[in-house]
């Protein structure tokens, strides 16, 4: 069974008296127990897709199944956690009160230990009785994460989850996501920044102008990965590839495995000392952003 299935989904809405097609015939199957990243430039349709999954908006045409059922069903909805992009909350309510509300509406009971543990996990325990209006953007984002995971959902949908977080909080969030993944849960992330999600994802799909441009398991996509090689040495180019100087080190980006192997063979002849090799889909996917 799939965690989410989009069957020929269209979303058309009116904005300023014009019709806007946010999603065009999307066919998508998100496997259970995966970390599925939806990437794409701003306005690509990522948020619309996530809003459909979470039942905040409805498809104009087509069908969507979430956890094998309809998201409007309360029993399905209580198994879903959602962090919207730039989340916002009741401003005069404290995080503790808001999480009580989340637990009560999802589970019908309130276990304060769960609230304490969730607040502790996102680093908001000290501020549990502060009003949300006093929070910084990063703190609001962390509360957003807490409310998305506190009821231990089977499907967690995170829209631009790394936005507004400092590097330590980003690492903590990645750890939380991986823990949920290890427990067999499904996590759907959206991001306009591939760097944030590449290291985490089991699957990546790129959406642009409401259409899926490319997608699949990370391993299969990695055959298209670029090799970013950092080295010491005095060359200005290698074949067609230019070398960029960064301080004492040089960086070269190679497009495929064959080029990389050739470069390794020639490295000793050219007296190059390789420092690091990074695999990245960024350059490959960048073309779809343009």
């Amino acid at each position, binding site marked *: 069974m799939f965690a989410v299935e989009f069957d020929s989904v269209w979303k058309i809405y009116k904005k300023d008296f014009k019709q806007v097609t946010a999603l065009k015939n999307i066919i998508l199957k998100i496997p259970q127990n995966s970390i599925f990243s939806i990437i794409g430039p701003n306005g690509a349709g990522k948020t619309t897709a996530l809003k459909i999954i979470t039942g905040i908006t409805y498809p104009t045409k087509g069908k969507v199944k979430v956890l094998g059922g309809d998201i409007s069903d309360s029993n399905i*909805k209580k198994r879903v956690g959602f962090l*919207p992009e730039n989340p916002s909350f009741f401003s005069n309510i404290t995080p503790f*009160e808001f999480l009580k*509300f989340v637990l*009560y509406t999802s589970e019908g009971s309130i276990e304060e230990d769960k609230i304490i543990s969730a607040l502790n996990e996102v680093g908001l325990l000290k501020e549990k009785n502060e009003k949300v209006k006093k929070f910084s953007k990063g703190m609001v984002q962390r509360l957003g994460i807490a409310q998305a995971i506190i009821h231990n959902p089977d499907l967690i949908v995170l829209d631009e989850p790394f936005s507004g977080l400092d590097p330590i909080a980003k690492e903590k969030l990645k750890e939380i996501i991986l823990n949920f993944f290890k427990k067999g849960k499904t996590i759907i992330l959206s991001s306009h920044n591939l760097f944030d999600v590449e290291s985490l994802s089991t699957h990546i799909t790129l959406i642009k102008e409401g259409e899926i441009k490319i997608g699949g398991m990370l391993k299969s996509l990695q055959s298209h990965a670029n090799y970013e090689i950092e080295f010491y040495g005095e060359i200005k180019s290698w074949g067609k590839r230019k070398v960029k100087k960064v301080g004492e080190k040089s960086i070269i980006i190679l497009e495929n495995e064959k080029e990389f192997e050739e470069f390794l063979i020639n490295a000793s002849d050219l007296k190059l000392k390789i420092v690091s090799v990074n695999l990245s889909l960024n350059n490959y996917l960048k073309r779809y952003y343009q």
Partner: protein
Amino acid sequence: MKKTIYTTHVIFKEIVRDKFFLFLGLSSLLFFLLTIIFNEMVVGQTAKVTKDLTLSALNIFPFLFLLIYGTRLISKEIESKSIYTILIRPFKRWEYFLANLLALFFSTIILNLIIFLLGITTIFIFYGEIWIKAPFIHLLFTLLESLLLSGFAVFYSAIFSSSVSVMLFFITYGIGHSIEESLKSITEGSGVALKPFLNIIKFIIPNLSFFDYKTELLYSIKIPERTLTLSALYSFTYTFLIFILAVYFFRRKEL
């Protein structure tokens, strides 16, 4: 239903902790202090003016509260997108709408009670008079009016932007309080055939004169016994219809 009640409780807390609500509470206190000073300095010691102002305050403050806060209740949640973190919870949109309506109405009850208590306390302390029955009856009528107006405020705030909601609410209030007089003058000048039609219009257009018995209460004129029951029936029925209409539109609204 338990979830709706809990959501109402959370929204109610959000409202009564707002600075504007506190501001109105303190303003009503200031209003009564100024009334007494004004009475002492200019008019002399007459309880009548204070009584009149107490009954007027029971209309003015809830109106201001609903106009400035109530009409933004849902629209500000939509604009700030905080509605997403609410609607993701396992309940329907109509339940969220109902929770907002109830929370807003309960907040106006609190505001009305504060003004009521301030009014009767002022009369007792400064004029030594126990004056409860008339303001209490006026309070009941005001609460019925507040329920209907809460329905309109939440309806407008769920469908329109904050500025449009404020405008529509103001117009509704204006029409509501002038419709009876306007229809009366039209009826006098019209033929017999038009009268049944105008009588129906009187109920269809929100008619707030059904809740306005201030003059009668102030001058101890008897109000027919069933008036309160009929006004309650009108308020509940009208609010229910607004609720149905609002839910119909709100369910289809793109968020």
